[in-house]
């Protein structure tokens, strides 16, 4: 039991961070607006959760310009993907 709980990730206790990570697991990348539309949250709220995931190195940010407008892409890192998979496995074990 202790072993399982160890794999539960604090970063994914928050629903929005969990949602961001779920979406990034199945997409090569997503931009800020797609994530906002998907999760139905405010700009500030989303930005702060993205920042926290970035700080734990679960996602990386790529800034580029599209038709002279800044476009920010978010990608899941391999560290982030591994942590997410472990987290889901832990949840599934707990539910058994």
């Amino acid at each position, binding site marked *: 039991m202790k072993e399982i709980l160890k794999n539960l990730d604090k970063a994914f206790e928050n629903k929005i961070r969990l949602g961001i990570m*779920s979406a990034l697991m*199945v997409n090569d990348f997503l931009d800020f607006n797609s994530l906002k539309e998907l999760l139905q949250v405010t700009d500030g709220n989303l930005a702060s959760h993205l920042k926290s995931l970035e700080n734990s190195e679960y996602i990386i940010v790529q800034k580029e310009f599209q038709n002279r407008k800044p476009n920010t892409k978010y990608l899941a890192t391999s560290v982030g993907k591994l942590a997410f998979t472990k987290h889901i496995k832990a*949840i599934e074990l707990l*539910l058994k």
Partner: protein
Amino acid sequence: MNNQAYLEDLKMIKEMMSRSTRFISLSGLSGVFAGSFALIGAFLAYKTVYSNQDYLQFRKAVITSETLTTLLVIATGTLVLSLVAGILLSRRKAKKNMVKPWNSQAKRMLINLFIPLFAGGILSLIFLFKGYIGMVAPLTLIFYGLGLVNASKYTLTEIRSLGIAEIILGLLAAHFIGYGLIFWALGFGILHIVYGIIMHLKYKS
């Protein structure tokens, strides 16, 4: 956290994964409309191809350059009407789901649908202009089915079995080559209507 919270988490993960990759605004009603237009189109095509013929004699499809033009007009009209209905109804559903109708999921689905569809369309036109009109119904059914199977990864999962059904009908139509129009009406008409109603009821579009 208790089990209930974990279950909710899992549910949310699934929903986010599906919503971020799949085009969920596809309207079931648009299938019903497309199916009805296809049936009307098939009926008009039947009238065009089998006109001026004795009921009791063996009926042969007569294609002149004039009827060919009429057929192409019917086909284009059916396609345009179906697309317009599909776009309008899906836009309405997207509004209800609070997502943009034209998002990356929609783009991905359409690109994957149109690659086989475009290839099949060109091939059918080549056969048509070389006089092999019998090949048009089976080819359009098969390639449309392949397009649907290909696109189903990016939209509602029912589309996959609809695609497989279209492919089977297309292969049957290739064997029973004289009954192309009937298979065509079944595939593009009846199947669309049946699937449209099922999806409308399931997703309450």
